[in-house]
């Protein structure tokens, strides 16, 4: 490293956000370069100034005499049912996981039923209420966790497992919805193109269009499953992860009700 260090590097160095390798490389440069050492000292000086100023400014700020324990003490008295509610909340992670697993099983059943109907040549415009039931089952733990994570967005193994189940469940529902959209397109095309109501050439054109439409949908599905998986992996248990699950489930529910309009 012969040229001088950039501001970006010096700011990263002084904020301890560099990797060990980057830091070691900079250490060796700084040992030989008084110019960069002076610039680093300037950054560190400004950081000390910010730190000390904030400490001094906030040290002078005090709450009013009205802010005292006596003001909140009556709200801390816990009646029997409230204590029971507090205890029951500890069972929430296990209950949420059970609901999510049930949703996953229901979603898989719906998907298998649709695939079976496709295999025997039927057009499964709906697998009955199973996918909708699965969506509702997924929504319960997502809403519960979204509310809980308002104040406790800490990662835990339980929330990671739950996020994985929900990710798999929403992916299964996505697969089912590809079949659903394909069938909707087929139905729309046969209605538009059918002249006599019978299955002539128009029928096969509609089947072909449905099949071709499944291809971009499958690509979108793969992108969403991989991208969503990465997002949830990085943020498992955090509010933003539950929020994305919420939006995913809402979108899937909207697609599920589309056949009612066709």
């Amino acid at each position, binding site marked *: 490293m012969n040229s001088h260090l950039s501001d970006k590097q010096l700011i990263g160095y002084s904020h301890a956000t560099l990797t060990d390798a980057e830091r070691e490389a900079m250490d060796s440069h700084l040992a030989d370069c008084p110019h960069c050492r002076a610039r680093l000292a300037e950054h560190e*000086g400004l950081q000390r100034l*910010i730190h000390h100023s904030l400490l001094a*400014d906030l040290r002078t700020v005090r709450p009013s005499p009205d802010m005292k324990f006596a003001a909140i003490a009556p709200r801390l008295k816990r009646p029997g049912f409230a204590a029971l509610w507090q205890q029951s909340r500890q069972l929430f992670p296990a209950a949420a996981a059970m609901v999510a697993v049930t949703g996953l099983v229901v979603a898989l059943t719906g998907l298998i039923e649709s695939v079976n109907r496709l295999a025997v040549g039927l057009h499964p415009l709906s697998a009955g209420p199973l996918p909708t039931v699965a969506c509702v089952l997924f929504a319960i733990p997502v809403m519960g966790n979204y509310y809980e994570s308002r104040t*406790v967005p*800490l990662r835990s193994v339980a929330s990671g497992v739950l996020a994985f189940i929900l990710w798999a469940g929403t992916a299964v529902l996505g697969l089912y919805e590809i079949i659903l959209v394909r069938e909707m397109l087929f139905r729309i095309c046969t209605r538009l193109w059918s002249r006599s109501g019978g299955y002539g050439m128009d029928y096969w054109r509609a089947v072909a269009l449905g099949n071709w439409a499944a291809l971009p949908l499958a690509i979108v599905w793969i992108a969403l499953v991989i991208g969503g998986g990465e997002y949830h992996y990085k943020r498992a248990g955090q509010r933003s992860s539950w929020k994305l699950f919420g939006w995913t489930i809402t979108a899937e529910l909207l697609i599920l009700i589309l056949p009612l309009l066709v």
Partner: protein
Amino acid sequence: MLDIGALIQRWQAGDERAAEALYNHHRDSVFRLAYGLLGNAVDAEEVAQDALTYALVNINRYDPDRASFATWLHIITVSRCRDRHRRRRWPNLSLTAWLQRGRDIPDLVPGPESRTIQAETRSQVWEAVQALSRPLREAILLRYWAGHTYREMAEILDCPVPTAQSRVRLAYKQLRVTLAPASLVDLRGEKA
């Protein structure tokens, strides 16, 4: 030196004096964080009371293996401050307030806000921090004032660690631009 763990256990067992000790120990810190984030003593006091009440009522949900009690309180405080910011975005439509317009008698006794502000001498750094956007202000206060690690900041801000780091760097860069002339004077003074 207060044993926070022992106090938490005693409060979980129902000892109200332990709750009071926890409250008194963390009151100023929670209030100051809220004040730094909201820039308003009345709002900060409400938020701090709310956060402390929530933490004490839900003490059984606190897990010491995951975070320190102070970090947990900061998670709650930042969350409540964000709620307060969100509410500020909407116009405050109150029928009773509208009906009472023009009938208010000015209060000549200084309120808690004016009492607090009178006691302050604001620095240029403070003004510059208050001018930052909300996410950057949160990051700079948690790092520079509260001294949290980036991992703790990620938990408090509900974001990945690299995001917390980049917010601190970005906030610092903005402060550097704003404070450039002032910081040079202060740094020269520091050297002398």
